[in-house]
C-alpha cells in the first residue's frame, strides 16, 4: 500500500511547476489538458450566444426592437454561435483535448510522434482564437454571414469577414497538425503486441478522423484564402459580378465541411465504443465491423458534399449521385449503432455516469441520423432545406451525438486525467437534465421546420400558434439544457477539491491507458517499453 501512495505522489502535474513549465511543455497530457480548458471555455462562449438566440425567439416579439439594425445583431449572434462552436469547440474538443491525452496512453507510447508540433498546434489554436476574439470585440462591424461564409453576401457585407476567415484558416492548421501527429503515432509508436486489429476502437476512430483532418482541412484553407483575396484583391473567382461563380464557393466549402461533420462525430463514436463495452463487461460486438466502418465513413464522406447544395442550382444529375452516395454513407454509421446495441444485448450492464451519457448518445444519435435521410432525398429536401428541420437534424447529431459523447468521455477519463473521482449521483442527475433539456429544445424544432419555419430569422409570424408554442418550448428547453451543463461542469470541478483519489483503473477497463497511474507520470508508463498483454475488451 505504501508503495502505491508513494508512487502516486509524483505525476505529470507536479513533476515540474510554474507557468513556464506549462507554456513550453511538450508533454501530450499537459497539452491535452490545456486544449480541454480552452475548448470548454469556447463551449461556454458559444453556449451564451445560443441562449441569447433562444431568448430572442422565445416570443414572436423577441427581446430586440423590431428594426433592421437589430436584425443584424441577431445575425451576429447565430454567426458567432456557429463559428465558435464549430471551429473553436467541437473540432478540437475530442481529438485535440481527450485524444491528445488518451491516444499515447492507449498505444503504450511515451508521447505523440511529434511533441513540438503538438505544442505548435495548441499555440496556433490560441492564436486563431485570439484573432477570432479580436474580430468580435476589436471594433470591426460584427460578422453576420453565418458560419458558412456564403458569397456574394460575405463579399459585400461590412462585417469582419477577413478577420474571422483568417482566424478559421489558422485554426485549420492547428487541426492539420493534430491529424498528422495522430496518424504517425498510430502507425509507428504502437506497443509491441498491438496489431492493427488489436487496437482499441477509439484509436480507429481517431485514425479515421485524422485522415479527414489532413485531407479536407487544406481545402478549407485555400477556400478562405480565396475569399480573403476576393475582398482585398477583387479576384472575382467567386463573384458573379466579375464573371466568377458563387456556387463554386459552396462546393469548396462543403468539400471541407461535410467531412468536417465526420471529424466531429467519429471521435465521439470511438468513445462510445470504449464506454459501452466497458460498462457492459463484454467483448464489443462486431469489432472489425466497427473498426472498418470508421474508415468507410472517412472515405465515403468525401463524396457527398453536394447534398448541402441540392437547391443551389447544381445539376440534377449531380444531385442524384450525391443523394445516392449520402444514403451510402449512412450505412457504416448504422452498422456501428447496431453493433453497440448488440453489445448491450444480454450484458451485465452497470449505469455509471459515462454509461448514462453513452446510452443517451445511442438514442439521440439515432434520431439525428434517421432525420438526415429525408434531407438526403431530393424531393423532401426541397421542403426541408434551410428550415428548422435542418437545425434540429444537425443538433441531434452534433450535440446529441458529439457533445454527449464528449461528456461521456469526459466522465470516463476524468479519473485518469485529474486523479479524482467526481460525485456519481450528481453526474447522473446532470445527465438526466441535459437529456431532457436537449430533447425539449430540439425535438420541437422538427415541427417548426416541417411546417416551414425558416432558419436564421429573428422573428416569426405571431398568428401561427404552433410556431409560438414550439419556439416557446424550444427556448425553455435551452435554459434547462444550459442548467444541466452547468451542474455537470460544477460537479467535475468540485471533484478537484475533494479528497476522493481515483484508483488507477476505476472502471476495470482493459485497454492500456488504464495500466498507467492516475494521473500518469511524466512519460506515462513505468516500464520503458510497455507490452500489450491483453486484447482490448477481454472482460471476464
Amino acid at each position, binding site marked *: 500500500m505504501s508503495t502505491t501512495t508513494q508512487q502516486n505522489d509524483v505525476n505529470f502535474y507536479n513533476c515540474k511547476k510554474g507557468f513556464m513549465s506549462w507554456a513550453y511543455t511538450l508533454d501530450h497530457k499537459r497539452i491535452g489538458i490545456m486544449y480541454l480548458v480552452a475548448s470548454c471555455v469556447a463551449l461556454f462562449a458559444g453556449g451564451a450566444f445560443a441562449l441569447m438566440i433562444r431568448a430572442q425567439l422565445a416570443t414572436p416579439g423577441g427581446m430586440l426592437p423590431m428594426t433592421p439594425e437589430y436584425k443584424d445583431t441577431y445575425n451576429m449572434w447565430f454567426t458567432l454561435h456557429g463559428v465558435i462552436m464549430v471551429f473553436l469547440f467541437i473540432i478540437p474538443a475530442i481529438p485535440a483535448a481527450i485524444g491528445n491525452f488518451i491516444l499515447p496512453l492507449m498505444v503504450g507510447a*511515451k508521447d505523440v510522434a511529434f*511533441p513540438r508540433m503538438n505544442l505548435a498546434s495548441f499555440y496556433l489554436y490560441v492564436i486563431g482564437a485570439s484573432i477570432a476574439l479580436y474580430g468580435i470585440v476589436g471594433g470591426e462591424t460584427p460578422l453576420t454571414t453565418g458560419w458558412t461564409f456564403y458569397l456574394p453576401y460575405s463579399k459585400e457585407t461590412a462585417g469582419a469577414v477577413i478577420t474571422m476567415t483568417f482566424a478559421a484558416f489558422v485554426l485549420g492548421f492547428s487541426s492539420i497538425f493534430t491529424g*498528422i501527429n495522430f496518424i504517425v503515432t498510430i502507425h509507428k*509508436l504502437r506497443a509491441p503486441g498491438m496489431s492493427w486489429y488489436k487496437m482499441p476502437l477509439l484509436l480507429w476512430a481517431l485514425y479515421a478522423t485524422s485522415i479527414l483532418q489532413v485531407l479536407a482541412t487544406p*481545402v478549407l484553407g485555400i477556400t478562405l484564402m*480565396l475569399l480573403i483575396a476576393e475582398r482585398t484583391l477583387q*479576384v*472575382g473567382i467567386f463573384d458573379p459580378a466579375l464573371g466568377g*461563380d458563387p456556387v463554386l464557393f459552396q462546393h469548396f466549402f462543403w468539400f471541407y465541411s461535410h467531412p468536417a461533420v465526420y471529424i466531429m462525430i467519429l471521435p465521439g463514436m470511438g468513445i462510445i465504443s470504449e464506454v459501452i463495452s466497458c460498462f457492459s463487461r463484454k467483448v464489443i460486438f462486431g469489432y472489425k465491423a466497427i473498426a472498418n466502418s470508421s474508415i468507410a465513413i472517412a472515405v465515403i464522406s468525401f463524396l457527398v458534399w453536394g447534398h448541402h447544395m441540392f437547391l443551389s442550382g447544381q445539376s440534377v444529375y449531380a444531385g442524384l449521385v450525391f443523394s445516392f452516395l449520402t444514403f451510402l454513407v449512412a450505412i457504416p454509421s448504422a452498422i456501428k449503432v447496431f453493433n453497440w446495441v448488440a453489445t448491450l444485448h444480454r450484458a451485465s450492464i452497470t449505469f455509471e455516469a459515462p454509461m448514462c451519457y453513452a446510452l443517451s448518445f445511442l438514442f439521440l444519435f439515432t434520431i439525428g441520423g434517421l432525420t438526415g435521410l429525408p434531407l438526403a432525398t431530393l424531393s423532401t429536401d426541397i421542403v426541408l432545406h434551410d428550415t428548422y428541420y435542418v437545425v434540429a437534424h444537425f443538433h441531434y447529431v452534433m450535440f446529441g451525438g458529439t457533445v454527449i459523447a464528449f461528456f461521456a468521455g469526459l466522465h470516463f477519463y476524468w479519473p485518469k486525467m485529474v486523479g479524482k473521482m467526481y460525485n456519481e449521483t450528481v453526474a447522473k442527475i446532470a445527465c438526466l437534465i441535459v437529456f431532457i433539456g436537449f430533447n425539449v429544445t430540439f425535438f420541437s424544432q422538427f415541427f417548426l421546420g416541417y411546417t416551414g419555419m425558416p432558419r436564421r430569422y429573428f422573428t416569426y409570424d405571431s398568428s401561427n400558434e404552433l410556431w409560438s408554442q414550439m419556439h416557446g418550448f424550444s427556448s425553455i428547453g435551452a435554459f434547462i439544457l444550459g442548467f444541466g451543463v452547468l451542474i455537470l461542469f460544477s460537479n467535475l470541478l468540485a471533484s478537484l477539491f475533494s479528497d476522493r483519489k481515483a484508483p488507477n483503473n476505476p472502471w476495470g477497463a482493459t485497454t492500456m491507458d488504464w495500466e498507467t497511474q492516475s494521473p500518469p507520470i511524466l512519460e506515462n508508463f513505468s516500464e520503458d517499453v510497455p507490452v500489450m498483454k491483453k486484447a482490448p475488451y477481454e472482460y471476464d
Partner: protein
Amino acid sequence: MSSKVDTSKFIPRFVSHHFSNADQEFDSCKLGMWLFLLTEFMLFGGIFVAYVVFRTWYPETFESGAEKLDWKMGAVNTVILITSSVTMAVAIRDVQLNKKGRALALMLITVLCGMGFLVVKYFEYHHKFELGIFPGGFFSFMGDHMSNEHLYFSIYFMATATHVLHVILGLIAILWVSWRTAKGEFYEAYYTPVEMVGLYWHLVDLIWIFLFPLLYLTK
C-alpha cells in the same frame, strides 16, 4: 541505403527521447512529411479545380490570357527548379555518405537556383503590373483582351503567388539544414531533417511542373 553502422542499436545525439532509435524516428518523420505534402497537394488542388472550371467556361479567354505570359521565362524557371531538385537530391546522398563539403556546396547551389527562380518571377510580375495586368477587379490592361480575362489572371496570380510563398519557405528551410550541416550535425546515421527538407523542395518543384504547362502553354 548502404550504411555501415547498425542504426537500430546506435542512438545518435539528436534522436528525441520518445523514439527508441533513429530508424523509428526517421520512419515517423518521413510519414509525417508525406502527410504534410498531401495537405499541400489538397491546398493547391483548390486552385487547380478553379482553373479547370473557368477554363471550361471561358476557353478562348484562357488562351488569350496565356499568350500574354512569356513562356520563355516560364521555361527558364522550369529548368532552374528541376536543376535545383537534382542538386538537393545529390546533397542528401552526400550527407548520407559523410561527404559534408560537397553536400554543403550542393545545398547552396540549390538555394541560388531558388533565388534565381524568384528573380525571374519578379521580372515577370513587374512587367505585368506595368501593363496594368492585375488580378480580377483591378485588371486595367488597355491592349487586346477577351472579356473575363481578369479571371485568368486572378488564377495566374493566386497560383503563382502561393507557389512563390512555398519557394521562399523552402529556401529558408534549406538554409537552416545547410547551417546545421556546416556545424557537422548530420552524418550517415542521422540525416532526417535534410531528407525532409529535400522532400519538401521536390514538392515545390513538382507543383511548378504542373503550373507551367497549365498556365503558360494553354494552347
